[in-house]
């Protein structure tokens, strides 16, 4: 049998200077860390913005630095940063970069220079975004959905500079994502090591792979809508602008469609939910299997579920627009597709729990976060069935029910996975363990705190509290108790925000003084734990690439001595205690 030779030049161009090693680095691991640190930094900015927002909502009229204008700016920047610049960048630019070459047995991405450019372009987009805090009028306050005509007209904060910088920053981000994304897809397709068939890839890679393809197809819709809005604002075109008044004056625009923007935005925006969710699904699958010492349940179904979710997510976008004024008959189609997508998603949840079932559950920190994720994701997924069912969206759309739902499913859930991933891979990246005690404080406070932030929001939404309101006063149907509840939510939210400092402290202290990590502390099977050096060095694999002999989930194989068999171990090298059982297990 002939194998395609994989070009393997282990000892070419080893970077020597500090700058080429850590700054202008083309090593995927360094780029991953650069991406991660930038994303986490900007995420902390967004976290502070959310705390400011909550201060106004919980204790209205107490804080002189929060005006209706700045409130909307906090809302907008918080949303956009969290969705795009934190979650997308950290999951794909951070974990994608770090894990893809290591998990598939490659020395690096196939285009290392492009990879480096991707990071620097991403950094530029972040800087442009943050610059909008310092321009006249401040950042845009149009809501993260940036709906025109409002986004580019007086009456909305940051309608001059703020919105333009936002659109420019998004454009740059998309360039960065495209460079990174093409690289990930090519690397996964072309650089898998010998034996790493597609159906042997860990689910983490499957999640990242499908999410990246989705991103490459979805982000262009955002790009064109950003360009069109930019032209409406700067050149005076009318893509999204019908004949309207602004501040009492008739504008020159005519004939444009605000709803067209919404279609374009959500054609990006809905897949974006899964661009974040699918890598998280993949990562959590691998963490659950590893720490339960059991193979992932229904691997093939998990792969197909990822693919099917990826495909379906391109035909559900208008469920964000049931009450947008589009032809209401579209509601039948989009409600149906939306609820169909719940089936593969539910199967993934079942399979995660069934992975734990009859397992040997190690309650490590990554495992705790992963279990926390299952809980919050079930909750967020189920509340999505309300909003996806078109007629139920009538009373609930644009209320705090929506806010509660998407924070549970797309805020808290992926963030729990990100934490699980950080606690899981930190020993690989740094060679040291994170502190368990601090990690537990972080976990419990985050899970319980954030749940008590987002659960009550659903009920405020049922009551009819509208989102994006600076103040709720002067409304008869909102009882005093709802204001009290809002104050409680704020207290919980600030607690959760503060507890994240424990995590940061843990990272900083552990980097210097953490317990030294063994090469494979969790007994994981995937390739990244089998590197000759720990942490892996430039080129990842030393003199020879690993060869893959099995799928990624050979945990507790009957007859084998150890409860895990790494992917690069051939059957002949497995220590067997019961050869018959081992053979019956298909080995």
């Amino acid at each position, binding site marked *: 049998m002939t194998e395609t030779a994989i070009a393997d030049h282990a000892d070419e161009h080893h970077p020597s200077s500090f700058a080429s090693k850590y700054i202008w680095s083309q090593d995927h691991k360094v780029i991953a860390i650069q991406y991660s640190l930038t994303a986490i930094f900007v995420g902390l900015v967004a976290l502070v913005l959310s705390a400011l927002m909550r201060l106004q909502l919980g204790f209205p009229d*107490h804080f*002189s630095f*929060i005006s*209706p204008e700045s409130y909307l700016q906090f809302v907008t920047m918080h949303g956009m940063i969290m969705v795009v610049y934190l979650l997308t960048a950290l999951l794909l630019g951070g974990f994608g970069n770090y894990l893809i070459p290591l998990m598939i047995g490659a020395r690096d991405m196939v285009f290392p220079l492009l990879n480096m450019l991707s990071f620097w372009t991403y950094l530029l987009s972040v800087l442009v975004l943050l610059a909008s805090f310092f321009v006249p009028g401040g950042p845009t306050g149009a809501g993260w959905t940036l*709906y025109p005509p409002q986004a580019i007209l007086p*009456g*909305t*904060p940051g309608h001059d500079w703020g919105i333009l910088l936002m659109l420019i920053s998004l454009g740059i981000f998309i360039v960065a994502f495209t460079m990174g994304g093409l690289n990930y897809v090519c690397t996964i397709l072309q650089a898998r090591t010998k034996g790493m068939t597609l159906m042997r890839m860990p689910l983490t890679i499957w999640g990242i792979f499908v999410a990246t393809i989705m991103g490459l197809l979805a982000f262009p819709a955002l790009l064109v809508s950003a360009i069109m809005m930019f032209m409406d604002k700067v050149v005076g075109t009318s893509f999204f602008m*019908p*004949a309207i*008044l602004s*501040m*009492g004056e*008739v504008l020159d625009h005519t004939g*444009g*469609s*605000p*709803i067209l923007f919404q279609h374009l935005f959500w054609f990006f925006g809905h897949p974006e939910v899964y661009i974040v969710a699918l890598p998280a699904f993949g990562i959590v699958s691998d963490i659950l299997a590893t720490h*339960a010492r*059991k*193979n992932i*349940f*229904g*691997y093939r*179904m998990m792969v197909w579920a990822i693919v099917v979710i990826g495909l379906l997510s391109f035909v559900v976008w208008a469920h964000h627009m049931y*009450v947008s004024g589009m032809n*209401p008959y579209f509601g039948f189609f989009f*409600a149906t597709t939306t*609820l169909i997508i719940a089936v593969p998603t*539910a199967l993934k949840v*079942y399979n995660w*729990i069934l992975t*734990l079932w009859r397992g*040997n559950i190690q309650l490590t920190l990554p495992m705790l976060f992963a*279990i*926390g994720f299952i*809980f919050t994701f*079930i909750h967020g997924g189920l509340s999505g*069935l309300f909003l996806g*069912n*078109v*007629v*139920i969206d*009538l*009373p609930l759309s*644009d209320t705090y029910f929506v806010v509660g739902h998407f924070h549970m499913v797309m805020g808290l859930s992926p963030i729990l996975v990100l934490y699980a991933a950080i606690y899981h891979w930190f020993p690989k990246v740094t060679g040291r363990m994170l502190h368990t005690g601090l990690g537990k404080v972080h976990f419990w406070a985050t899970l319980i705190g954030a749940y008590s932030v987002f659960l009550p929001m659903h*009920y*405020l939404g*049922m009551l009819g509290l*509208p*989102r*994006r309101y600076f103040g709720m*006063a*002067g409304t008869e*149907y909102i009882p005093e*108790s709802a204001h009290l*509840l809002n104050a409680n939510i704020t207290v919980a939210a600030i607690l959760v925000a503060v507890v994240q400092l424990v995590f940061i402290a843990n990272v900083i202290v552990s980097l210097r003084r953490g317990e030294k990590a063994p090469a494979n502390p969790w007994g994981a099977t995937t390739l990244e734990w089998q590197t000759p050096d720990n942490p892996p060095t430039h080129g990842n694999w030393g003199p020879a690439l690993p060869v893959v002999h099995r799928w990624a989930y050979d*945990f*507790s194989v009957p007859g084998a001595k150890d*409860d895990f068999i790494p992917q690069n171990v051939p059957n002949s090298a497995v220590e067997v205690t019961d050869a018959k059982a081992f053979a019956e297990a298909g080995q």
Partner: protein
Amino acid sequence: MAIALIILLLIIGTVIFHVVSPWYFTPLASNWSTIDSTVSLTFWITGFVFVAVNLFLVYVLVRYRSRPGLKADYEPENKKLEGWLTLVTTIGIAAMLAPGLYVWGQFVKPPDDAMVVEAVGQQWHWSYRFPGEDGVLGKVDNRAISETNPFGLDPTDPASRDDVLIFSNELVLPVDRPVKLLLRSKDVLHNFTVPQFRVKMDMVPGISSYLWFTPTRTGEFDVMCQELCGIGHYAMRGRVVVKEQSDFDAWLARQVTFAQTQHHTEGDVALGQAQYMVCAACHGIQGEGNEGLHAPRLAGQDLWYLQRQLKNYQQGIRGTAEGDVFGGQMIAMANLVSDEQNMQHLLAYIGSLPEPARVAAEGDLRRGKQLYRNCVHCHGEQAEGSFHMNAPRLAGLEPWYLSRQIEYFRDRVRGGHRDDFYGAQMSLLVQSLRSEEDIADLVAYINSLQPEQLARRD
């Protein structure tokens, strides 16, 4: 085993929270009980799944937690189990989707006999239009909007003339009669929501959207804008009053038609001067105002605004609140011009008065400018006021009067009356001024503004 225990407690806590929560749908006031039933059904199904799946998770965590001697099973797939789970999930999903689509089918098709009413959104107010006797709404175009035609009606369309225009945030509807509400916007996206009716829809400039409902009980209901429409979004409130048919008919008969709004009564300055003599005692011969008598400056103010305030005094909307001593004094005075023609004469005369010199105000102009950013969208860059935004001119008003009115709005001495929608909006908006210092700085800044254009003379 803390994780299993905590998840168990979270399940129990969630269920208890759901059961005892006083925060749930407001009492229904429309025909859409079917929406509430669909929600209940969905709660039962999802609630069952939430409890069942999570309890299983708890069981698994307890039963299969690591302990010496425990070894995990090796079972890559279980096709039968996966098949069953797919089937059961699909059935559950279908059980929620089918009734949802059925009810949606009712929503997209308003009944043929529904009464057609139009709601118009603008930053940050509502107005409404009834089709009048011919039952047809006249054509509209945003480009036709002017001060004499705020709805943008096409004057050449015969269907326009009898359209009944409601220049107010308040809409009155008859009980037990289906209403098809056509929605449009003059500027940006808005959304017409009455929580007790359950249905909502965006108002989109350039197109007309709709929703329908049948009010099933009389009463007053808040209208909320629920699509972000800029800085005043949270203050874009209105009201639907549902009345018995006869009360509704009487109310509708009192409203003006488009044709009626096209007749203007021109005021006569000389006749107005005679009217003004009573006012001059307090407001000054030149309408320059008198702080000692608590009489604000009138010269230079928008006439449409003066007219609205005079009517507010006449109708008891302003000056009746406890604490508004000086406003109370105005009621009797305003009643002297209860005749429409006399009021026009008076306004014409006030409009002819020259703008008086400014009074100095102390305050930090830089801070004031910053604070004014929340006012600028309605009252204008130079505080010149805007008829379309329902915002009076502020430039030229005396500082003592401005700060007193801001305090009145803050304390709801002004803006507390149920029919004072614009005042109520100001009450919400001035909440962003947190201190006396804020007010002083803002007033000083407004006082420093010198709009080029004069106040409106019409």
